[in-house]
């Protein structure tokens, strides 16, 4: 897959010391932008993507030829209005859409890194991405926005750089990955490493791909992104292009066929080792522990205005985990708004057409933008 020509890449010269102890430098960070940076450079929004996202937020993704992962929310006149704001999104390090990741070649050994790639954390991801501010000469972002793992990056970003964002919108996320979150991620990793073709992570040089394992990982994860009610309403016990059960193990049910399809299209665009690395980063995320058990301390130095949203049917990052962040912020008198959005679409709600969510996001950003311009 020759993806280079459609990808903008910034080479980060400055050494970055990773949480694992290793230091990386001269590494690529792939990014994309939408809209225009204004003269005052005060209309920039840094969007963080989730586990399987990439820098192609909206419009047609030039690599997959499909709509960007947040096309419902980002674009002209949309919630994150690209007529108004300059949107930047980078592929996380550890990823597979051009940023420094396990599918890259190790310059010392001339071999693909595979599992020799350093273990990355959410902290490392945002420390890499903050370089984009210098690159675009932006002193302060208008907002940092992201859902799921993107929301974790929002929290980490504000904690690391308390004066670099006027507003922050963490959506459907958590300050600390729960045992259930880790369990599901481990299931995915086991599916990948159990695939014979994974070859201890050296599949690139063996010219094989652990497609089966990666597909199973995606299928399992996909279930966690939906709600029971949503699945039941969409699929029920409907049969897949057949009148009756076939008494075999083909996909009799529509839900089976749907999951198999989701798995098969995923392997075309995602690297199995990246999946291992990024899920690991999520599992290691524990902002509470980073601040010795007191989440409030993560935000003590910031004046950033927060707006947090969760979804009623999200059981992966449930409302209470989002509310815990609200509570920690209120405990230090931070400026925080919160609403739980009614939706049957599960964790995936933030990626889908959920009008209450999209309106709230737009209203918060647009009103805050007017307010911040009045102040300055």
């Amino acid at each position: 897959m020759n993806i280079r020509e459609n990808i903008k890449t910034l080479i980060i010269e400055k050494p970055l010391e990773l949480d694992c102890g290793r230091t990386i430098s001269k590494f690529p960070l792939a990014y994309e932008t939408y809209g225009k940076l204004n003269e005052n450079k005060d209309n920039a929004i840094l969007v963080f993507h989730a586990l399987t996202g990439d820098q192609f937020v909206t419009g047609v993704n030039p690599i997959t030829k499909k709509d960007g992962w947040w096309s419902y929310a980002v674009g002209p006149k949309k919630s994150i209005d690209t007529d108004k704001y300059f949107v930047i999104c980078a592929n996380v390090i550890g990823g597979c859409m051009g940023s420094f990741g396990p599918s890259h070649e190790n310059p010392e050994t001339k071999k693909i890194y595979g599992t020799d790639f350093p273990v990355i954390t959410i902290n490392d991801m945002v420390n890499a991405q903050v370089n984009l501010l210098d690159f675009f000469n932006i002193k302060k972002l208008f907002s940092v926005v992201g859902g799921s793992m993107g929301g974790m990056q929002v929290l980490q970003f504000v904690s690391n750089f308390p004066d670099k964002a006027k507003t922050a919108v963490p959506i459907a996320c958590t300050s600390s990955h729960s045992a259930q979150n880790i369990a599901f991620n481990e299931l995915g990793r086991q599916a990948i490493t159990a695939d014979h073709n994974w070859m201890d992570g050296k599949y690139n040089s063996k010219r094989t791909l652990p497609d089966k394992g990666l597909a199973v990982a995606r299928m399992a994860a996909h279930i966690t992104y939906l709600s029971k009610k949503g699945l039941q309403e969409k699929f029920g016990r409907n049969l897949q292009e057949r009148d009756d059960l076939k008494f075999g193990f083909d996909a009799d049910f529509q839900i089976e066929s749907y999951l198999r399809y989701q798995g098969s299209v995923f392997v075309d665009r995602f690297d199995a080792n990246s999946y291992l690395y990024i899920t690991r980063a999520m599992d290691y995320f524990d902002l509470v522990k980073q601040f010795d058990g007191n989440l409030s301390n993560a935000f003590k130095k910031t004046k950033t205005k927060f707006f947090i949203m969760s979804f009623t049917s999200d059981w992966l990052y449930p409302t209470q985990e989002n509310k815990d962040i609200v509570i920690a912020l209120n405990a230090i008198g931070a400026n925080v708004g919160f609403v739980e959005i009614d939706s049957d679409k599960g964790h995936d709600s933030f990626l889908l057409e959920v009008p209450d969510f999209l309106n709230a996001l737009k209203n918060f950003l647009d009103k805050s933008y007017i307010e911040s311009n009045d102040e300055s």
Partner: protein
Amino acid sequence: MMKAEYNFIANIIEKNSTVLDVGCDDGTLMEFLKKNKNVNIRGIEISKEKVQICIAKGLTVIEGNAELDLKQFPKNSFDYVVLGQTLQAFINPEIVIKELLRVGKKAIVTIPNFGNWKVRLDLLFKGTMPITSSLPHEWYNTPNIHMCTIKDFVKFSETMNFKIVKSLALINKNISNISKSNIFLKNLLGELGIFLIEK
């Protein structure tokens, strides 16, 4: 919706102070105070729809329930905490009052007065639960499960051991002070009691 008492609440609140509006509804009072008193104001509201309206107005509001969610605010987080006409709707008004006075240095509480003569006449002559313009619900669907009178609230302050710094009665869109000598009359005529209280 702009209510008659908002002007009087605004008069009590000092400029540039910090305020929490508990049960902030569609944010009308918040906007009014922001504009007229330049306060740093937050809201808490139980209805998702109302929270959405507040967000659309650019107000900082969290979706939550005063009985459960006030505890996340530390002691004396705000100069004033406002509770407008909802004390009677809580399962446990005692806890709510305690929480208001913990979170705020002062609290402003307004109550629809069940001692108003219209209410009294309704019960006296009709023998049914009173329904008035400020209390429009039937007994079986009213959110007001703990109705009280102006007099009851004064008594409540003694039992709960908090100070009433200022007490006002709203009668026909006019405001007047409640004192020991006139409380009988104010309790009969007042549609609404407005109280500034502290620990």
